[in-house]
């Protein structure tokens, strides 16, 4: 990829770190020269957990360790980390320098495990790609390593509901991934399942129960390798979606697929969905009247990972009769063929300069993108809604643009933007009249 300007989310090491930080009970140990971990904290601001962000155990290797190998330094760091940080699992992640020198991370992890410290390792080196690669790689390594770490299987709850793994939503892949996961959990549990999200409070124990799921649910292509490996290893079947469902129609299809596949109580699912649909109408109907006057047929551009672009794009075009003019996918390679999901033009780029140029050349009323598109949105005088990282000033709480609550939130945010834009237009017009130029 040429001339990258603001390449959004960081490298594979950062993706691995974001993933590990999000699993409670897991402590990452970065085997790298100074800078790799802090860059992650700066690049992926809304990730982080108990151990993460700016406080991550790291070897901070120097020239000496590059020349002679950093094994001894890493051994020391693992020992010291285990002494001062209480973790259920320690995961060593390596940097580019360590990978080039060939430091043997797995050997060190095994050595520590023999002394009773549960350590896994992932040679995830930044140069393997972006954050998505890091997510994929570190989880693949954990799938291999976890069974070796404890001889006894994890405690299984006495719960008759089938367990399903939620894969493919990358921490930091969109600013609201935490809310997205919890919304998916809410829906899955409402239709009679147990969701293994493993990010968040469920943490390590949930990670350990990955092999016990009845089904792997994959919500982006970044979960496909994980599901494939879990199927190979444990025979767990998989159900693959392009994106997380958003809006009543997609959630209904999603629920229906699961009901059929896992032989769930169809009636219970139906009652839940009816109630949710009624709620959505209750929240949005009043606003919708205004929308039909002002919102229909808006021309929009979407910038983000394929997953979020598809999720929000298909919801908007269906629910809000929006015209998707341009989509820019930020987790694709330049030379990759991207299916034309919408009528508008499709691009792959994570170069902010290139993205701005594409947006400038598009005839649009609204931009759904990252905070990096603030300037171009201002220049085009169109509203911007942040759906992809970095979100900069907008701090995500448990907010979501997924599932059913996400549809209400997105609908409301979309309407708010249109109204604000209209208000600004009206005020500008008044000012022109007052100034005698109207």
């Amino acid at each position, binding site marked *: 990829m040429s001339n990258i300007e603001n390449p959004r989310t960081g490298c594979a090491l950062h993706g691995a770190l974001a993933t590990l930080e999000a699993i409670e009970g897991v402590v990452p140990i970065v085997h790298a020269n100074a800078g790799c971990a802090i860059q992650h904290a700066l690049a992926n601001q809304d990730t982080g957990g108990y151990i993460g962000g700016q406080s991550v155990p790291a070897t901070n290797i120097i*020239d*000496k*360790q*590059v*020349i*002679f*190998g*950093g*094994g001894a330094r890493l051994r020391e760091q693992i020992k010291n980390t285990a002494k001062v940080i209480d973790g259920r699992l320690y995961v060593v992640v390596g940097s580019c320098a360590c990978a*080039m*020198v*060939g*430091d*043997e991370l797995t050997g060190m992890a095994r050595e520590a495990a023999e002394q009773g410290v549960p350590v896994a390792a992932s040679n995830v080196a930044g140069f393997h790609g972006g954050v998505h690669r890091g997510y994929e790689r570190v989880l693949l390594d954990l799938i291999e390593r976890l069974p070796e770490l404890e001889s006894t299987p994890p405690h299984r709850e006495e719960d008759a509901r089938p367990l399903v793994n939620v894969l493919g939503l990358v921490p930091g892949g969109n600013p609201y991934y935490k809310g997205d996961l919890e919304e998916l959990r809410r829906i899955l549990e409402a239709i009679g399942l147990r969701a293994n999200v493993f990010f968040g409070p469920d943490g390590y124990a949930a990670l350990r129960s990955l092999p016990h799921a009845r089904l792997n649910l994959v919500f982006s292509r970044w979960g496909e390798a994980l599901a494939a490996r879990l199927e190979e290893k444990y025979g767990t079947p998989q159900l693959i979606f392009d994106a997380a469902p958003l809006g009543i129609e997609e959630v209904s299809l999603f629920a229906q697929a699961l009901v059929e596949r896992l032989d769930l109580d169809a009636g219970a699912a139906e009652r839940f969905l009816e109630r949710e649909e009624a709620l959505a109408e209750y929240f949005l109907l009043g606003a919708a009247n205004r929308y039909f006057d002002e919102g229909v047929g808006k021309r929009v551009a979407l910038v983000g990972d394929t997953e979020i672009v598809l999720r929000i794009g298909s919801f908007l075009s269906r629910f809000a009769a929006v015209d998707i003019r341009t989509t820019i996918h930020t987790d694709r390679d330049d030379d990759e063929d991207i299916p034309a999901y919408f009528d508008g033009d499709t691009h792959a780029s994570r170069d902010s300069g290139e993205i701005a140029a594409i947006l400038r050349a598009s005839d649009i009323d609204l931009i759904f993108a990252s905070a990096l598109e603030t300037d171009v949105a201002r220049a085009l005088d169109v509203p911007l809604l942040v759906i992809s990282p970095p979100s900069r000033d907008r701090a995500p709480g448990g907010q979501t643009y997924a599932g059913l609550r996400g549809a209400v939130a997105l609908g409301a945010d979309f309407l708010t933007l249109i109204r604000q834009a209209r208000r600004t237009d009206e005020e500008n017009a008044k000012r022109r009249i007052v100034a005698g130029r109207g």
Partner: protein
Amino acid sequence: MSEIVSNRISFSGRTGAKPAPRARARDTQPAVGKHIALYGKGGIGKSTTTSNISAALAEAGYRVIQIGCDPKSDSTNTLRGNHYLPTVLDSVRGGNKVRLEDISATGFKGILCIESGGPVPGVGCAGRGINAAVTLLQELHLFEEFKPDFVLYDVLGDVVCGGFAVPIRDGITDRAYVVTSSDFMAIYAANNLFKAVNKYAPTGGAKLGGIIGNGLSAGYSNAIIDDFASRTGVSVAGYVPRSLMVSQSELYGKTVIEANPKSEHADIYRALAKHIADNDDLVIPQPLGTNDLRDWARDWGDRVFNLENSGGAARVAA
């Protein structure tokens, strides 16, 4: 006076301004002595050749430094009676303040012997090690202090990655020699070095001084080396035939110059050393492409086959 000074049109005053001199990657052009790197395939006799050249130069009254750039750290053994010498990187590893006297030993006729050292086999990065060792020697003002006439860098094996090309980059040495036998794999390694020189020379890296033929035994060995040299546009600095005397001297922990100073072989090394000392005809070699090199080798295979089967009667000519 209406003299036309210039018909150039200047846009924002830039035309005519000289471009800023290209900044060197590091300001290390050694001010003192000729700095020479010797490369070649592993086991081809680089250390033996380098040590004998050093010995011959020292014998002729020059001040010489020999720096072994190999984790094996055995380049200068025959110059200093096989005594233990802490390497530059050993001292880096120790973490103490490094002094020149701790990492150098005075060998035959005052040659200053230094070993860069490196990681134990299978860990770390030897290439980065060489880089760090050479940088440290410069920081210690080795060359300003010792004021050598010649500095010889005996560099391990093939130039497999950037680290091993350090001695010919960034102005550390200004000339490289390659030691090779007439075996294809040795010539293949030489050709690889030519590729590295070819890459770095235009931006301030070392140029090639020539080929040193070593361990030559067959009648056609010189012809093969000559042919390779002429095709790549380089000269041959000397031919060192295979000899028991070299191995024997080495077993006694000495160079041929020291152990058998009156031998014919000692004179061969002296002539080689003189050539290297005097030669300022440095070139940028034109390495053969991988397929060309293969074709060239096959062609020589045929010639050697014919030669062997004609009872040595056929004349070998390049």
